[in-house]
């Protein structure tokens, strides 16, 4: 690309986003896309991955589809685009009313960019609407979800390869912040795009120090957390593996640290309340959020200083993503993982619950056989079947996909053929074993890292890339940490208005431009 072409690209960047220069990797990936390449971009969190498709969507004719794993992520992106007056973007998800959806379908050719969940792409109505227009670019954001979630939680991710074909095989851009070589291979296979051009940028973040601290029990964890929070570390996230734990710990911290502003956030909350908590944090009205993994993807807060893991995630990829939410402004930040031996069992149990066990699979096939012999061949994905087969939601989603894949279910009907069922049983059983073994490997990588006595940084990134930037100070707990670096980082507090009367509060909003 010539100098003047680049100048033009930067001009467009400024026109749509107000930025004067590209950040690491953006320009290379955008150039690849404009040259018609299928690209797999791996960019560290916080470097503006979304610009890699939001800009091309404006520059090339036709529609750009972005497959996004979370509705909240989609809504955030569309809202942020609306806030910068980027027009022609919409989100398709289960919250969009049928009427609104019809309107989007009717005007489909007017859009540059449409976000959609992988589940919605399975709907005939959605596919038909998308087929009516020219699709120039098909983006899979957070592409590691294909491999990380596709096999159990979100089997619809595994069908993206077929969807691509049915949409006339448009150009593909897969984006992620973390993907080990094995995961990248898995993604290429599922998308049926062996030729994806890899553009990998190092994911290590030298401004995030790494610390692991053993804890005796819950109370011990809580006191470590309190010790850190009392030092005023600045905006902080605390990750939990369950919704209930995030709520309970938040409430305990609120009671014990009355001068801190603390809230919880998880996927079970009402949509508006999720937006409120998110925006309070963005707006500096909250210091600390106790959350599950539902918080963070797509959250663009630059000055998060501390990420604590109350529970550790089941693999290093998730860990790197979650700590990567800290220090996007380049400032000194720290990741603190609290570890207690019980946690390993807890995480293991959570993993095991994602898939049906061997004995359960046997029983499920027996129930299936019973259904067929009594002529009840109608079957669906609803919760009534979870009860019937004694499986949880995740397990049923996994099984349903497997049954479809192996020809046991066709168009919501059970189809019995002895040989097919026998083969399928063995295949599914083998697959479950294979997946469990894989997850256990990932979990033991995580566990091994937590036991690491050498440099944590070196041990963390060696699975993903060659080498890393060595921080001048504060690398990790093994290399030596000066914790005072993370003290007194809190910005000016807008003080709560507990004493204020409702009239004062109303007047502040109506006449004084918010609470100062």
């Amino acid at each position, binding site marked *: 690309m010539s100098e003047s072409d680049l100048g033009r690209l930067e001009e467009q960047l400024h026109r749509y986003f107000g930025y004067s220069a590209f950040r690491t990797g953006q320009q290379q990936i955008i150039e690849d896309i404009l040259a018609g390449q299928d690209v797999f971009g791996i960019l560290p969190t916080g470097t503006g991955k979304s610009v890699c498709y939001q800009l091309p969507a404006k520059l090339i004719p036709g529609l750009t589809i972005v497959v996004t794993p979370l509705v909240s992520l989609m809504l955030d992106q569309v809202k942020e685009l609306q806030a910068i007056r980027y027009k022609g973007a919409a989100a398709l998800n289960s919250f969009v*009313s049928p009427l609104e959806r019809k309107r989007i379908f009717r005007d489909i050719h007017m859009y540059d960019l449409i976000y959609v969940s992988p589940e919605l792409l399975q709907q005939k109505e959605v596919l038909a609407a998308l087929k009516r227009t020219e699709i120039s670019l098909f983006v899979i954001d957070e592409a590691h979800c294909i491999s990380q979630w596709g096999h159990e939680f979100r089997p619809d991710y595994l069908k993206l390869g077929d969807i691509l074909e049915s949409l006339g095989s448009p150009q593909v851009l897969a984006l992620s912040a973390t993907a080990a070589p094995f995961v990248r291979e898995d993604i290429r296979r599922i998308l049926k795009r062996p030729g994806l051009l890899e553009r990998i940028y190092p994911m290590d973040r030298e401004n995030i120090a790494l610390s692991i601290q053993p804890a005796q029990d819950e109370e011990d964890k809580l006191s470590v957390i309190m010790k850190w929070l009392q030092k005023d570390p600045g905006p902080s996230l605390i990750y939990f593996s369950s919704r209930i734990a995030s709520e309970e710990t938040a409430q305990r911290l609120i009671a014990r640290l009355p001068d801190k502003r603390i809230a*919880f956030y998880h996927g079970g909350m009402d949509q508006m309340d999720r937006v409120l908590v998110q925006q309070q944090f963005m707006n500096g009205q909250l210091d600390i959020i106790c959350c599950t993994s539902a918080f963070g993807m797509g959250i663009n807060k630059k000055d998060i200083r501390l990420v604590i893991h109350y529970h550790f995630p089941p693999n290093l990829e998730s860990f790197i993503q979650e700590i990567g939410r800290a220090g996007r402004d380049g400032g000194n930040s720290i990741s603190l993982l609290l570890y207690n031996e019980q946690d390993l069992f807890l995480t293991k149990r959570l993993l095991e619950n994602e898939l049906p066990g061997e004995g359960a699979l046997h029983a499920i096939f027996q129930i299936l056989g019973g259904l067929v012999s009594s002529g009840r061949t109608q079957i669906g994905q609803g919760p009534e079947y979870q009860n019937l087969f004694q499986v949880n939601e995740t397990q049923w989603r996994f099984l349903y996909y497997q049954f479809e894949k192996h020809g046991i279910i066709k168009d919501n009907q059970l189809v019995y053929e002895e040989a097919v069922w026998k083969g399928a049983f063995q295949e599914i059983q083998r697959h479950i074993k294979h997946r469990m073994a894989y997850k256990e490997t990932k979990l033991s990588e995580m566990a091994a890292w937590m036991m690491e006595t050498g440099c944590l940084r070196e041990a963390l990134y060696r699975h993903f890339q060659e080498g890393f930037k060595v921080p001048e100070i504060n690398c990790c707990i093994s290399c030596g940490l000066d914790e005072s670096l993370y003290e007194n980082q809190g910005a000016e507090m807008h003080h709560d208005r507990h004493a204020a009367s409702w009239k004062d509060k109303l007047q502040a909003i109506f006449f004084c431009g*918010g609470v100062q």
Partner: protein
Amino acid sequence: MLFDQVLLFAVSRFAGNRSNAAIYHLITGRKSIQTIQDAKLFHMQNIYGIYPVLKKHIYDRRIHELAAAGLIRLHNGERAGCSLTEKGHEHCNPEEIPSYHYLLGMAYHETGPVFMKRLFLYVQTFSNTANGNSKFIPIVDDGAAMSWVRTAYRNAKGREAKFMAQLYRELEKILETCTEEEANLFADRLSGHRHIGKSLDQLAIEEGMSVPDVYLVLTAVIHRMLSAASSNSEQFPILTSFASTDRDKQTVSDSAAVTRRLLGQGLGTDQVAAARNLKENTVLDHIVEIALHDRHYSIRPFVSEQEEAQIMNVLENVQSAKLKEIKEAVAGGVTYFQIRLVLARTNHMNEAGAANE
């Protein structure tokens, strides 16, 4: 408090004549004929649909907690209901909670949420733009509310301060008639320039209330605003505009409309059923639905004047009874369908009263 009182109130009104699920349907505003008729028959129009997002497991848990506390007695058996214990009767005094009196569920279960979203978004939009900030993230994710506020904003552009002053006066006037607690909850929920309102969970923790109580108190305040606006639209022009809907008239379902057209062409209910490949009972449901929505729809082809008078007579005498008991009490025998039709009619007769309650 309020949530428990609403539950106790519903339990006392149903008095074991309906299942526990019926209370849940009532509070969440299920749009079935049975639930709407229950609300009217048992005089609980005020709490119909006041908590549409209430989760079933939260409801079930609370019912069991009230039973464990000895306030209600759970009945055994399939579809069992519950009734108040003596202690429950002592504790059931919803009228002592101020916000309870604002609730007008039957009138506002649909307008309420729309009104609230527009109000929140309007305040956030005008507060921001008045401060020169047009780049803010809307706290309400609702395409319809967003486009409504966008239009309102376009019409008010350049005069934002004037509109804000007016809306402030309207809110102040109403909140002054509320309790401090109610007014504070409402004020804390609002978002504006550089200030994001509190979530239900946050308000609950701060005020030491349960989430359902916060939700219901806020709903009650919204209902109070709606009824103030509807009784005095000149004094509350902006609040009145939030309450306006394109379809003030409720419409019947598409399927019921087709049934109505075919009936109008002279087909019998069995013929309509056959023509549409529906069960005849479905067609009868459609007729009740039509009668419920259109007060001018004649029920005469299905219920004679004499039958109607008999049913009305029984209704007046055995107020809180099950359909089955009504049926048994009518001499000469009528069908469930006929009873439901007459009930649909009495709804209209009560409607003028209900709106002014």
